């Protein structure tokens, strides 16, 4: 009987000690805000285009943390979906076509001689990448443009084009090799010389 009581007593003391530690840790290491939202937000491409139906990337990150599907971000494409799936430990699903399709990186370009200086695109730009003033010609700061498209619609004279960022010698990258091709699975290394000389 004594042993049982002793065991219970020890366990009670232990639980009190650890409970105290946990309680202290909860107060001491309390995290403000929702860290998962920050993590999701960090994976989103920050184009702030609103194609997901939310006014910016952070609101969508919040929506994802509340259970919205992870495949509503066309600018991020499949890579972002994969990253989100890895983070949230859910299955990667194909991009939802309702929200748009994945396109190449683009930037907005204003045909400057047609611009009437209405400032509507400036107000639409989520990242303040358009420069100009009322009745003055506007221009896009290409380096800051996220290619979100939001300036195209409000333009009353349709002088904004979305232009693909072309591949130049500076941003070109090597192709990924084909990998083990199907037919090469049939040969062994010593067959290589005959294969080659054919």
């Amino acid at each position, binding site marked *: 009987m004594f042993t049982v009581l002793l065991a219970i007593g020890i366990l009670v003391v232990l639980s009190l000690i650890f409970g105290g530690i946990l309680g202290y840790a909860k107060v001491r290491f309390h995290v403000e805000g929702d860290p998962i939202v920050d993590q999701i937000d960090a994976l989103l491409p*920050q184009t702030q285009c609103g194609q997901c139906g939310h006014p910016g990337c952070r609101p969508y990150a919040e929506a994802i943390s509340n259970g919205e599907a992870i495949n509503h971000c066309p600018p991020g494409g499949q890579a972002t979906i994969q990253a989100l799936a890895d983070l949230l430990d859910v299955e990667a699903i194909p991009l939802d076509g309702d929200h748009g399709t994945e396109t190449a990186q683009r930037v907005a370009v204003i045909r400057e001689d047609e611009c009437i200086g209405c400032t509507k695109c400036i107000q639409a730009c989520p*990242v303040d990448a358009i420069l100009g003033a009322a009745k003055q010609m506007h221009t896009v700061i290409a380096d800051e443009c996220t290619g979100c498209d939001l300036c195209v619609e409000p333009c009353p004279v349709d002088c904004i084009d979305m232009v693909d960022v072309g591949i130049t*010698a500076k941003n070109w990258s090597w192709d990924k*090799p084909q990998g083990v091709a199907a037919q090469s*699975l049939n040969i062994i290394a010593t067959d290589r010389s005959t294969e080659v000389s054919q």
Partner: protein
Amino acid sequence: MQTAQVFSFHGGIHPEENKTQSLQLPLGKPSLPKELILPLSQHIGQASVPLVAIGDQVLKGAPIAANNGLLSSHLHAPTSGTITAIESRPIAHPSGLSDLCIVLQPDGKETWTELKPLPNWQQLDATEVISHLADMGIVGMGGAGFPTQVKLQGAHKKPLSHFIINAAECEPYITSDDTLIREKTRELVLGIELFQHLVQAEQVTIGIEDNKPTAIAALNKTLTECNSKIQLVVVPTKYPSGGERQLIQLLTGQEVPSGQYPADIGILCQNVGTCVAGYEAVYLGKPLISRITTLTGKALNAPQNVDVLLGTPVAHLLAYADLQEKQLNRLIIGGPMMGYTLDSAAVPIVKTTNCILAANKKELPAPAPEQACIRCGMCEQACPASLLPQQLLWFSKSQELEKAEHYNLFDCIECGACSYVCPSSIPLVQYYRHTKSSIRDAREAAVKSDLAKQRFEARKARQDAEAAEKEAKRLARQQASASKAVQTKKTAPATKTTEKSALNASNSEAAPQINDTTKKLKVDVAIGKSKLKKLQKQLVEAQEDERLEDISALQLHVSEQEKALVELETELAKAVKANPTKKPSDTPDNSVEKAKAPANDALKKAKIDAAIAKAAVKKVEKALKKAEELQAPEVDAIRQQLADAKKRADELEKVLDNPSPSTPPTEQKPAVSAAQLDLASQVKKEKIAVALAKAKINKLNKRLASSPEDAETVSKDIEAAQQQLVQAESLLATLIESQHNSQETS
């Protein structure tokens, strides 16, 4: 000369050297090509900015492009001639893409510009000499094309223990450095001493592979002649001992830590070509406009080294070395290990082109198909950077970028030793290159998205602040008006919101305050009305939402409010009756003036209308002209509109010519003036409607002019809008007429 200890580095391979072919003939000097193509980015870093324009005459050695930022270089005309184009041309790049190039047509005279050597460089400050080297466009000629001035300045951050001159030239086929040492031994030694003077290293060492006996002998001879302190260290032939980090390890036994530069451990490494270019820049004042390049491969009948002007097209050199077109299978720039295939022979020689390999089919067969990795580990044995190529392959294949980086993918020098030994012919280096660029892209994207986020958040903060400011202003205004109301209440305690006190006040206050009372009552009535409206609205909402308890309460409020309103109105009527004669007689002059003012206003308005109408006529005329030019079918419609607009303009002018005959009468009955006011407001409304209709027509016309395709629908719209306009105008005319009449009668 003392013998120095030679260390070793991990891995390495011994591919067939194939160096003798190109050493059979002496250094060649090809003729001037028809045009020289000079890419603006021949070095690592930002592309140079052109200093010349199309059509400019330039002399040999004159600067044609200036450096653009810290990590950039100058570019000089390799010969005298005319600039014929500054345009995109294919350049020597693994992608086969084009880039901006200056195209120079030689005049064949080879007229040098004035050369500016630095004879007294030993007395000068190191910085001055380094900036002279920068002006002469010197870049590292070993392969990467790192601007030399940046490298030399970087060497100053730590006292240098070793200055190493890279003469290893380990890659098969290439013999350009070998030839350079043989041809320009003295210049090389002077160049090395020049650089040593600039960097003041403790020890100067030339590292050379033992497969260049002639060059070693020549160097030894010159070094003894000059009584130089430079040490010549012969290293065993092994690929890639010419890699900067590998050579440093061979000569000093030190490893350059991952992610750092040799300068971080007090070592500077320069290629022999760079040293000779430095000599020529300082001693002779010659900018970097030519280099020695190896032309080799079995498709060439006369493989050799050539001293070639920068910008010479590869095709010109191949012709010089007697190319057999039929034999040519692959054209490679650089060596067989680290070079890349060229798509076109039109690309020019640049500052870093050390070899052109025109290989036939036997020499460089197509790569065997890739097979599965058998985990033999031979790649690990061969890797000179002591990496784990197999692991990196897995991570590259599955695009696990973080892990690849963690396994030091960026320490890979892409020497190709692993691919060379791989029994499964896996193109490992290509995987690494792809993964490296993926990582770089991801980093860039991360930087960009961070920036976008920052800008988005800044914008949001700004918008919020603006909204808050507006709200604060609104509140301040509200408070101000509220405090005013309180003040007026205090000054006139009689005027209280409830009808009872109002009644008391009207009874007890003296005559001068009666006017105030009526005013107050009127305000109260207005307030009561708006309250009633609000309550009714709420009631409707409540009924829609079926909130029973609210409905009954609201109904009670509404009926109460209605009662109060009725009482207020009767009170008001009483108050007005109580002093009917006072009000008009109080301000007779005022009323006259008031009446005059609207007349003036009307005149002004008429003038403005006339101006607007004239402008409209002009606009329509313009539209008509455009339409006629386009031969659009809606010309008639526009003409009709023009006639209308003219008519209207004429009418308005007529009205203006005989200005309102209604000189204000001396006395006006309030009822009449009220009616006039009502009329005036109606006229105003109608005028606005007319203006709106006109604007619509204008807009439609614009659209018509810009897009004749959907002319039909647009012209239909125009017709409808015109009808509206006509209606509105006729209504306006009748209204104006009645207004005139009423004014006359009054």
